[in-house]
C-alpha cells in the first residue's frame, strides 16, 4: 500500500524540487535573471495573467482554432477512413498517395497559408487540419482493418443490415483506434495552433509569446510558455478521461481498473 502511495507523492516532491532548483539557479547567479527569471517571479506573473481579460482572450483564440481545426479534420478523417478502410480496392488505390502526403510536414504549408489567408484564423486552421487529419485517418483505417472477420460474418448470417453492421460490428472495433488517433491529433493540433500564431501571427497565445520575445519581456514570455504547457496537460487529461469513459467496456480500460 505504501509503495502505491509513494508514486504520486514522489511526483509532487519532484515538482517541488524542480521549482526549488529553478528558483535557486537565478537567485545564486548561476544563470543571469534576464535569461532565466526566478520561478516565483514567473509564476507570480502567471497568476496575474489569470486575472486579466487580454490573457483569456488570447487563450480563447488559440482554443477556438484548436477546436474548430480538430473538429473539421476528425470529421473528414472518420468519414474518409471508414469509406476507404471498408473497400479493399480503395485501400490499395489510395495507399501510395497517403504514404506520400502524410509525411509532408504541415509547417511546409506556412507560406501557402500566409499567401492565401494572411494572419488570420484560416491560416491556423489550414495547418491544424493538415497535421491532425492524417493521425486520425490512419488510426481509423487500422481500426477498420482490425474488424474480426468472424464477427463480421456472424453479423451477416444473422441478417444484420448495413447500418446495423456499422453500428454493432464496425464502430466498436474502430472506436479505440479512433480515440488513439484523437489523442495524437489533439496534441498535434495544439502544436500547430501555437506555431501558426508564432510564425504567421494569427491571434492567440503564440502571437503574444512572439510579441514578448520581440519586446524582451522575458518574465511574460516564460509565464505564457508555462500557460501553453498547462493547456497541453489539460487537453491530454481531457482526452484520456474521455477515452476511459467512452471505452469503459473495452478490455484495455477494464484491465487497467482491475490492476
Amino acid at each position: 500500500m505504501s509503495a502505491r502511495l509513494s508514486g504520486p507523492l514522489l511526483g509532487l516532491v519532484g515538482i517541488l524540487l524542480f521549482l526549488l532548483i529553478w528558483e535557486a539557479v537565478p537567485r545564486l547567479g548561476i544563470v543571469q535573471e534576464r535569461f532565466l527569471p526566478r520561478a516565483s517571479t514567473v509564476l507570480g506573473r502567471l497568476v496575474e495573467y489569470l486575472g486579466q481579460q487580454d490573457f483569456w482572450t488570447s487563450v480563447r483564440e488559440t482554443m477556438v482554432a484548436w477546436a474548430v481545426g480538430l473538429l473539421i479534420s476528425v470529421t473528414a478523417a472518420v468519414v474518409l477512413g471508414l469509406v476507404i478502410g471498408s473497400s479493399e480496392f480503395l485501400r490499395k488505390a489510395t495507399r501510395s498517395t497517403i504514404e506520400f502526403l502524410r509525411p509532408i510536414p504541415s509547417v511546409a504549408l506556412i507560406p501557402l497559408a500566409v499567401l492565401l489567408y494572411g494572419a488570420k484564423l484560416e491560416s491556423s486552421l489550414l495547418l491544424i487540419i493538415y497535421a491532425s487529419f492524417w493521425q486520425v485517418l490512419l488510426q481509423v483505417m487500422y481500426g477498420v482493418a482490425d474488424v474480426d472477420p468472424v464477427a463480421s460474418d456472424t453479423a451477416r448470417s444473422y441478417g444484420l443490415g448495413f447500418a446495423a453492421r456499422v453500428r454493432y460490428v464496425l464502430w466498436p472495433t474502430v472506436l479505440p483506434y479512433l480515440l488513439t488517433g484523437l489523442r495524437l491529433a489533439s496534441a498535434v493540433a495544439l502544436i500547430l495552433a501555437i506555431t501558426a500564431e508564432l510564425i504567421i501571427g494569427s491571434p492567440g497565445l503564440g502571437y503574444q509569446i512572439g510579441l514578448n520575445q520581440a519586446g524582451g519581456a522575458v518574465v511574460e514570455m516564460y509565464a505564457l510558455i508555462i500557460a501553453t504547457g498547462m493547456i497541453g496537460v489539460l487537453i491530454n487529461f481531457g482526452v484520456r478521461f474521455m477515452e476511459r469513459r467512452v471505452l469503459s467496456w473495452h478490455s484495455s480500460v477494464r484491465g487497467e481498473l482491475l490492476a
Partner: protein
Amino acid sequence: MSGKKRRKGDSLPARIGFSLGLPVLLIAIWWLSTVVSPSFFVPTPPELVQTFWETWVGPRFHTDLLPSVVRLAIGIVATIVLGVVLGVLIGSNRALRSLTEPIFEFFRAVPPPVLVPLLILIIGINDQMRIVVIVSGAIWPVLLNTVEGVRSVDSVLTDTGRTYGITGFARLRYLVLPAASPRIMTGVRQCLSISLILMVISEMFGSSSGLGFTIVLFQRSFAVPQMWSGIAVLGLIGIALSLIFQFTERRVLGWYLGQREVQRDQ
C-alpha cells in the same frame, strides 16, 4: 497494415496500377485545372518541376538545403541518443521514475515551437540554437517511451536474467534494450516529425539561410513557383525520413513484428 493480410497477392501490373493510378489521376486533374484556368497561386506541373530543378540544384543546395539537413540529422541523432540514455537511467530506477514523471509529462505537453523564441533569447541566433531547439522539443517522446519500455520489461524475463546472473552491460544489451525497443521506436517515430517541424521553424525566425528561411523569403517576394518547390523539398525530406524509419524499424524490430503477426494469426 495491409501486409498482415497477404492473401493471394496481386500481380505486378496490378500493383503498379494501384500505386500509380491515383497519383497520376491527381496530377492530371492539377495539370488540367491549371491549364484551363491559370492561377497566380498554383503553378502547372512542368513549371514546378523546372523551378524545382533551377532552384534547388545549384548554389542553394550548398547554402540552404545541405546545412538544414545536416542540422536536422545532428538534432535527431542527439535526440535519440540522449533520450534513450536518460530513459534507460530513469526507467530502471523506480524512485527516480516517480520523481520525474509529472514534470516530464508537463514538458512533453509544452508545444515545442514556443521553445524557439526562448532559446533565441538564451543562446542567440546560431546553429547551436537550432540544434538545441530540435533536441529540447523532440526528446520527450523518445525519453518517455523509453522509460515506459524499460519499466514494462516482462517480469519473467527479468527474473530469468537475474537467475542466470546476467547483469551490467550484458543485461542492458540483451535484455533491457531489446525488450524496450518497440516502445523506443514508437518514440523515435514521433520525434522525427517534431524534429522536422522544429528545423523549419527555427530557420523561419530571424535567420538568413536554411530551408525555412528560403521558403519564407520566396513567399514574401511572391515567387510562387519557387515557394511551391520549397514545399516540395520539405515534403521530400519528410518522405525520406519516413522511409529511413520504416527500413530501420524492419531491421530493428523484425523479431517483434514477426512475433505479433504470429500471435494475431492464431
